[in-house]
């Protein structure tokens, strides 16, 4: 039977559609011209300019710090949550699962807004702390779901077997839980880390003046400074994310 050409053509068209903006961005970041209109020759000047911008360095540092803290928090909370939902099949856990699941269907703008109201309501100063609390909240759901997926292949009878053989919890964690669930934890952590680094909308609403992360900084730079610096910054940002993704692919693959 002769295959229709429509799927192939749509597929190729869609790939062009996806790569066009990114390709142009990379090319433009090496363009010496101040605005993207014409090509003034190859140059590293935007990368050099970026190197001198201490405000961007500060934002990058904030982003990293927030990502590390919220990854740590969401992995601990998420692993516990997944364990409970998987292990105890009670009504409480059904509500628990609902609470984990609901944030995934709520758009960012609403989540950011509601957290802003919470912080205003309790009179908390918007700071790096409020950003960490917000990031942990949305990362928690993703980490839990990744962990739940891993736990499905995990047989709790192994723990009972180990206990029967006289192993204490220390040994069980070291010899059974970490080797079997470690890759899942790592995948969840990398996911949380990238989600936190990438988030703009929620951060934008719960960050106070002077506490910017890289995406918020990029957003404010779009209105003012030269677009070419943003291109250079974007290329670096993109490279870092790709490296993290490649790492996470490794972890996921070693499991399956």
């Amino acid at each position, binding site marked *: 039977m002769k295959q229709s050409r429509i799927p192939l053509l749509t597929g190729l068209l869609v790939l062009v559609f996806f790569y066009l903006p990114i390709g142009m961005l990379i090319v433009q970041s090496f363009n010496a011209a101040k605005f993207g209109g014409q090509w003034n020759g190859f140059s590293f000047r935007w990368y050099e300019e970026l190197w001198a911008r201490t405000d961007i360095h500060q934002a990058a540092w904030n982003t990293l710090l927030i990502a590390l803290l919220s990854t740590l928090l969401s992995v601990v909370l998420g692993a516990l949550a997944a364990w409970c939902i998987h292990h105890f099949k009670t009504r409480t856990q059904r509500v628990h699962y609902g*609470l984990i699941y609901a944030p995934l269907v709520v758009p960012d703008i609403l989540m950011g*807004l509601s957290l802003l109201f919470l912080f205003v309501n309790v009179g908390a100063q918007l700071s790096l702390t409020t950003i960490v609390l917000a990031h942990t909240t949305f990362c928690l759901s993703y980490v839990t779901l990744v962990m739940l997926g891993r736990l499905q292949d995990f047989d709790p009878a192994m723990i009972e077997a180990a206990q029967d053989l006289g192993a204490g919890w220390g040994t069980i964690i070291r010899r059974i839980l970490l080797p079997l669930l470690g890759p899942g934890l790592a995948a969840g952590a990398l996911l949380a880390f990238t989600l936190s680094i990438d988030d703009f909308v929620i951060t934008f609403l719960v960050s106070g003046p002077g506490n910017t992360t890289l995406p918020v900084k990029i957003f404010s730079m779009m209105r003012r400074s030269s677009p070419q610096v943003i291109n250079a910054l974007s290329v670096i940002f993109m490279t870092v994310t790709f490296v993290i993704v490649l790492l996470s692919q490794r972890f996921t693959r070693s499991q399956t």
Partner: protein
Amino acid sequence: MKRPRWTESLLTVPSFVWLVAFFAVPTLLVFAYSFKPAELSGSVGEGWTLDTWRTLANPIYPAIIWRTIWLSIICTVVCLLLGVPVAYWIARLPRLWRQRVLILIILPFWTNFLIRIFAWRTLLHPDGGLKNLLVFFGWAQPNDQLLYNNGAILLVLINTYLPFAILPLYAAAEKFDFSLLDAARDLGATKWRAFRSIFLPGIRTGLLTAFLIVFIPALGSYAIPAIVGGPSSEMIGNKIAQRATTDRNLPEAAALGAVLTLVILVPLGIAAFLRRKDQRETPAATDGPAVAAGPGGSHP
């Protein structure tokens, strides 16, 4: 069995309390704040009032809400129209190529989405390459504006959400038994008929997930209209952010947030209805959770 219950509570408390405190309670707060009076100083007044809800009848709001809804509907329809053939294409590729193409589809979306929107702004810029190309072929006038309008928003919305449509559609298409299409053809169905009455119903779980994963975040868009949209193409998300940050009118932001929440319940309701209908007709059908495929997930 006293001990297990006690252990369960102890282990459940951290994440449970966290989500109640930072998700459930704040969501209810949005509704509560919409009944509070706003003060000019930017703070929230004492007592309760319906004034904020009355101001929503102001002519600009219905227009913005309506625009948000129709832009999201068109975006979802286009994403499904493009996503179905792409999913079909990938599912019929040899195994090795399937993996490669999937990675190619996902890779661009590991770029921060603000950066991608920004790239579109450069691309659609009056002096940008795309504009020059269109003018060269005579498809656009030199004075045409590609940016800061509904069209630009729609283009970037589709670019952002299309992979979230493709992934669940592919997941469903991969499980589809393509020999059924050949069987339909042997029985005399046309290519199109076989596709419509065998393939599309076969991937309906994927269609439903794709619909939710595209439509809901599109309704809540903020950054896309803020960057490539103009003053006359705002969406609810923009107004919410504007009221919450620049204007510091928290009750009005809350009321708009409440409206958006109510709007979102419609697609969720439709999905729940279709899923129930599906289960009644085919009791064996099991639905996996409609989870976004990865970072960026439902969070652009």
